[in-house]
């Protein structure tokens, strides 16, 4: 009558644990983008209306600092050879017609440089651009 109830087995099955972890591992391996910075150190301006760009795979970058040093694909382009930019971006556009050019420009640069870059992009018909900015905190 007072027979002890048999205790049910209390164990979490761990045999599939490695598989689960591997799955997570592969997810992170695939999504990881190891940060690769181009050589030009710049400070981007801050703006409240900064938005996140979702279409990462369509992005191409132009780096430019306040001294007029321009870099595309890790190659520095001298100011005198600015007109070669339109050909570079025309090629890029033919490979990816949804190209967005992100302009990572130092905040101390002048608008003359920006305009010259934009004119080159218009020549290449790469009209979707983005001004790389930081998010401005509302406290400022």
């Amino acid at each position: 009558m007072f027979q002890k109830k048999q205790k049910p087995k209390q164990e979490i099955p761990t045999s599939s644990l490695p598989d689960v972890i591997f799955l997570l591992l592969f997810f992170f391996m695939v999504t990881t983008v190891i940060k690769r910075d181009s050589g030009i150190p710049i400070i981007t301006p801050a703006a409240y209306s900064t938005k996140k760009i979702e279409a990462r795979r369509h992005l191409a970058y132009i780096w430019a600092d306040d001294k007029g040093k321009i870099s595309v694909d890790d190659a520095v382009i001298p100011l005198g050879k600015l007109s070669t930019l339109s050909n570079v971006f025309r090629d890029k556009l033919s490979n990816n017609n949804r190209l967005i050019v992100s302009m990572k420009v130092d905040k101390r640069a002048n608008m003359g440089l920006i305009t010259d870059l934009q004119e080159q992009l218009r020549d290449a018909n790469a009209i979707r651009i983005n001004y790389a900015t930081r998010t401005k905190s509302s406290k400022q």
Partner: protein
Amino acid sequence: MFVDQKKKRDVEIPTASTADIAFLLLIFFLVTTTMSTDKGIPMILPERGGEAKINPKNIAQLLINESGLVLFDGRQVEDMELKDLLVERVQERGVDTEGSPRLIISIKSDRATEYDRYITVLDIVKESGATKISIAEPDKD
């Protein structure tokens, strides 16, 4: 002479530590992962050659000079004032059939204007709710 069949040895790779190894790798990738950090203000440049006729009432002119002063419709304005003026103007012109504001804001800057200043003004314009922004070419000097 009978050759004894050798007893098969137990050949197994120890798998008990696989989970630990995978965990270690997982933590490494978790730490090094940077999710999309590309941020900015999206813009669309005007296409070459395409010129559209626009009702002049729907255009607001914004001029930024080399020292960063802003001229709005022929009057110099401060940043705080500018936002209110723009919001007012956007509402005054209303929305078109697609539901986006009719007002087009044309920003024109000097070649010597600082980029930071331009972004600040562009930010104010974006914050005011205007979606049609035109970047005018600075005059060549």
